[in-house]
């Protein structure tokens, strides 16, 4: 139950990261408050480890602790649990990759809170560098994102044309269509030939 200081150190680091994110969302205290005092026990099967997530008014504490204190318990591999806690993998629950016991409504609510973590990066940045530079950075980022999207699309088209038209490494769609039609025709002819052969053979007998 108590794996020692290394486990404590790992949980402390994870908790600092998580609460750092939580602090960036001004709406989080009001979202966490209804869940305050409840504990989610997380039992990881691969690698084997377990810890409690205690929801407080403004933060979430990650601690080694006693499983009996938990409001709900969730069990699964590390990858499944991480995806699930981020709210990205509800399917994991349906696919029986996780085992859940206790107050599942609490687990669902906690998942929703964490999945809807809405960090206003522009506001956080504006506190450091000011409003006008933030707007410039934001516009710059939006422009860069659009340029990157456009460039990626162009590259994809160019690569496609180069491989199909210039290097002739792959057939294009019309060549494939012709090939498939030819294969279909051949299959039909073979079928007809087979039927005819069968008929001749049965006629002889």
């Amino acid at each position: 139950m108590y794996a020692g200081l290394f486990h404590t150190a790992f949980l402390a680091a994870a908790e600092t990261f998580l609460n750092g994110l939580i602090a960036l969302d001004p709406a989080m205290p009001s979202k966490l408050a209804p869940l305050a005092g409840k504990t989610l026990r997380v039992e990881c099967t691969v690698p084997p480890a377990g810890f409690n997530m205690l929801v407080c008014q403004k933060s979430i504490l990650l601690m080694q602790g006693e499983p009996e204190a938990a409001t709900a318990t969730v069990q699964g591999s590390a990858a499944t649990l991480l995806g699930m806690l981020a709210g990205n993998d509800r399917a994991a629950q349906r696919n029986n990759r996780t085992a859940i016991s206790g107050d599942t409504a609490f687990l669902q609510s906690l998942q929703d809170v964490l999945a809807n973590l809405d960090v206003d990066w522009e506001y956080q940045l504006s506190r450091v560098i000011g409003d006008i530079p933030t707007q410039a950075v934001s516009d710059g980022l939006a422009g860069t994102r659009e340029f990157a999207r456009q460039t990626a699309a162009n590259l994809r088209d160019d690569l496609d044309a180069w491989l199909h038209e210039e290097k002739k490494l792959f057939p294009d769609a019309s060549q494939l269509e012709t090939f498939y039609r030819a294969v279909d025709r051949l299959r039909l002819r073979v079928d007809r030939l087979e039927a005819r052969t069968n008929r001749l053979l049965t006629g002889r007998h």
Partner: protein
Amino acid sequence: MTKDTEQETTHFGYREVPVGDKAGLVGQVFHSVAQKYDLMNDVMSLGTHRLIKRFTLELSALRPGMSVLDLAGGTGDFSLLFSPIVGKDGQVVLADINESMVRVGRDRIIDKGLTENISYTLANAECLPFRENSFDCICIAYGLRNVTNKEAALASMFAMTKPGGRVLVLEFSKPVNPLLGKAYDAYSVLWPKAGQLITGDGDSYQYLVESIRMHPDQETLKQMMVDAGYRDCEYHNAMGGICAIHIGHKARA
């Protein structure tokens, strides 16, 4: 405690002093170092005291709504950790015999905006001024070795613990590996020099080094807790036994 021909004496570091004088001498030590106490803890422990305190917190099994006594709470490290866990329905009492330390702790906690569930009191661990069976958990961290009469302190803590509650004693102890022990001894020789440099008071840290060596080892302290009435006593070594966290439970009525 040893019997002198004239009067009872006890140890203050390596020195033998009259029993009545120890609390005052310890008081002077902590009064002197209160302002730089946290910084010195980081220097001496290389920051590991934070992890050890967190590990102790994990062993406390605190839940929302519980009441907890942070005895010898000093600059409030533990109260800050306890407060969000017990929540607004719980209660944290920071108690210390030293006014300077409580003042630093109280200011620090108020500055962090935690006022809802923490209260403060000056109290001697040997005769705690609370009703019996008041606390679900009592934690004394790096405090017991400074108490003149440790048996009386453990008995008083036992009386204040609710049936079914637990006491946690975090204290320097004896390293389990002799090599580690030698390295630790060599390192701790530097503390008075660091203390002189940072707080301008090397003597207080000389006392700290000596008091650590005079403190009972893991098994002795465990037996003292059993003698005080605690059940299912156990201890967890941290950093190879440089520190140990003892846990004792008070039987349910």
